[in-house]
């Protein structure tokens, strides 16, 4: 992470300033977007469908125009620059390889447009094909290749004319799981090797966590959080991010008192717990406590925890490396626990009484109003 961070220098590569987009004049697809994309970083725009992430990408590519605000590439405003003059590489959702051209013709296309000498074109095409390990596939038509191979060709085509910025619109969505994971790693390596800026759109959170330097989580046209994967997962800025990235247990309650970085919360079922502050909350505020399933300890492991609650086992699912346990706390509140299978050789059964422990650092008090559906920006 440090090597990449050091390569990312000061001046932003792309800047969104107060960008808004609406299609019907009533609903904003993108609201007041301010975003700096650093030179050389792998930035992922993550969010559910309709959250405005693809619209952002299309505005950057030039296929959509912002309703207001400005987009800069380097220090140049590109709002009015037509897409073919932006010199931005793009990988499309279904690859959009030209079906009437062979693979190498597809790759030659952007170079021929730029009127490069034939010898240089040949060299660049060969290099790009080698980079995606398809050196011998130049004479094939796209339809004669598998999805994974087409994906590589699309990638090579977006990179062959050496753009500094490459946009990817859910490019791995059509691949099966194993291949997708393989391509994620490969993409990451290509990014590290070439040092270009990549803006990647996806709705798959694990994809985003795997590849990104930073992730912008979108919901309802607003960036909910822009952070590196670790911070995003461990310190979600609000309830939406906590629920969208990874699995989350939400425990509603009231803040009774605040002491510096921690607070005491009375849960709706009556139990009192210590929690760390996620959002600034005051005494008497309604709060939503957030804890990851793997941060909840069971039975013996819960002994050292500051918060201990009693409950009953309602369901146990064996998943090889871990157990997935559904525990019902007092007040019919259920939480999901991921327990390492190795630590629980003596398995518990349904209906068993059980102790649940959560450390305050891993129990974050969040303001339920921020990032909630329908919340004001």
């Amino acid at each position: 992470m440090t090597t990449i961070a050091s390569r990312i220098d000061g001046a932003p590569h792309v800047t969104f300033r107060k960008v808004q987009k609406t299609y019907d004049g009533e609903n904003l697809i993108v609201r007041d977007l301010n975003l700096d994309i650093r030179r050389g970083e792998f930035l992922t725009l993550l969010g559910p469908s309709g959250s405005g992430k693809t619209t952002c990408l299309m505005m950057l590519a030039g296929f959509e125009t912002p309703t207001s605000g400005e987009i800069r590439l380097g220090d140049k405003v590109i709002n009015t620059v037509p897409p073919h003059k932006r010199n931005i590489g793009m990988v499309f959702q279904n690859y959009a390889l030209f079906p009437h051209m062979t693979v190498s013709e597809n790759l030659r296309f952007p170079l021929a447009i730029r009127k490069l000498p034939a010898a240089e074109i040949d060299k660049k095409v060969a290099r790009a094909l080698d980079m995606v390990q398809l050196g011998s596939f130049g004479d094939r038509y796209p339809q004669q290749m598998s999805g994974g191979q087409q994906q590589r060709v699309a990638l090579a085509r977006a990179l062959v004319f050496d753009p500094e910025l490459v946009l990817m619109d859910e490019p791995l969505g059509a691949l099966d799981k194993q291949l997708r994971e393989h391509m994620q790693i490969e993409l990451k390596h290509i990014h590290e090797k070439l040092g270009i800026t990549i803006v990647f759109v996806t709705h798959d959170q694990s994809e985003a966590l795997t590849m990104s330097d930073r992730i912008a989580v979108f919901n309802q046209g607003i960036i909910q959080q822009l952070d590196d994967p670790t911070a995003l997962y461990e310190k979600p800025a609000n309830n939406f991010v906590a629920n969208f990235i990874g699995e989350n247990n939400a425990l509603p309650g009231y803040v009774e008192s605040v002491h510096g970085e921690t607070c005491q919360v009375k849960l709706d079922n009556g139990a009192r717990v210590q929690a760390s502050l996620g959002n600034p909350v005051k005494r008497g505020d309604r709060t939503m406590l957030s804890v990851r399933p793997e941060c909840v300890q069971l039975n013996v492991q819960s002994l050292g925890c500051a918060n201990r609650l009693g409950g009953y086992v309602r369901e146990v699912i064996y998943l090889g490396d871990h157990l997935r346990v559904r525990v019902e706390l007092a007040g019919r509140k259920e939480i999901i626990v991921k327990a390492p299978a190795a630590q629980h050789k003596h398995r518990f059964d349904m209906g068993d009484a059980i102790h649940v422990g959560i450390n305050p650092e891993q129990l974050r008090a969040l303001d339920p109003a921020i990032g909630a559906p329908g919340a004001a920006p």
Partner: protein
Amino acid sequence: MREDNAMTQLTATLPRGMAAEAAVPLKTQLRRAERMKKLKYGALIAPLVVFLLFTFVWPITALLKRSVDNPEIVAAFPATSGLLRDWDGRSLPSDAVFASFADEMGKTRGTPVFASAAKRLNMELPGFRTLMMKTARAMPPTDGQTAREAFVAADERWGDVATWQYLGRNASPTTARYLLASVDRKYDDAGHVVQTDADEAIYVAVLKRTFGMSAVVTVFCLLLGFPLAYLMATQPARIANVLMIFVLLPFWTSILVRVAAWLVLLQSEGLVNQALRAVGLIEKPLQLVFNSTGVYIAMVHILLPFMILPMYSVMKGISPAYVRAAVSLGCPPFKSFWKVYFPQALPGVGAGGLLVFILCMGYYITPALLGSPKEQMASYFVAFYTNQTINWGMAAALSAILFAATLVLYMVYSRLVGRQELAAKAR
């Protein structure tokens, strides 16, 4: 790469499991399983096949056969025809031929069979009918006279080898005469194929005109139809459906009504001329009808939907992502369209163009009503020969030429499109 490995492993394990229970060969099992399905499908389409056989294949075959059919002479004089076919054709035929012809002439004289044979022979060689009638009256030969003498006595032309050569050429049940005539060729006296005399040669010009006019109409349909098809394919479904209704609207009226409507619109005192004069663009009415202008306008109008529909169906399948991709690669919008979109729309353009061209070649009523004699196409002559002179041979021969042209065009088209689809098939 990884999936390839997985695949080989998978297929490698397959045969072992199969071999254990393969007492009956796998191919036989498959055939058995598929047979029932095939029979069922076959039964479903059988009525259609029978229908097509009776309404399409059979009539076309029968008509094509007519273009080489030459039954009259063989029917009237079967024995003589047989003898003439064996004749070397260099000198006058033997006495046996004369005798046989005299005998058969005497027998068939006055019957409709004889009359049609005489009429048929007269078609190519005017005056032959009179010759036949005259000769027939002198048959059978009087006593003490040989058949040969009787013939020459009846008309001295029977002493000329050319007369017999002519008869001999037509003594076969098939003839290329009609087909040759429809490309302005004929047999000369010696039986060689030569050009028809200039004053009789019209069909090459007619066929040229037919292809020329069809090409012009096709080009206009393409130029007018392409933008509309593109618009329909790129608009949201709601707008595309409305446009589609307008495209299909002409189909709801009879072609005759549409042609008549153009007649009303385009005549010298018609709406178009009145409007143009009212606007002050012209002083005196334009001649828009009974010339090629009228024919082109009406035919383009009538055939436009046939151009638009195939193009639309192909264009609808082309994702807008392709042009976007081209633009993102630095290609200006129009060039992207031309380099990336148009080649993919080509099968639709080809199908539409071919359809319009083929329909054009067969057009009869529109040029007949809106054109002058100079705009009449091949179908006009087909109709002329079937309705007015009852010359089935010529009608069939002209149809056969149009049919052959259609087949050639279709083959060219499937060559062109087939090459593109080859790649798609490999998927």
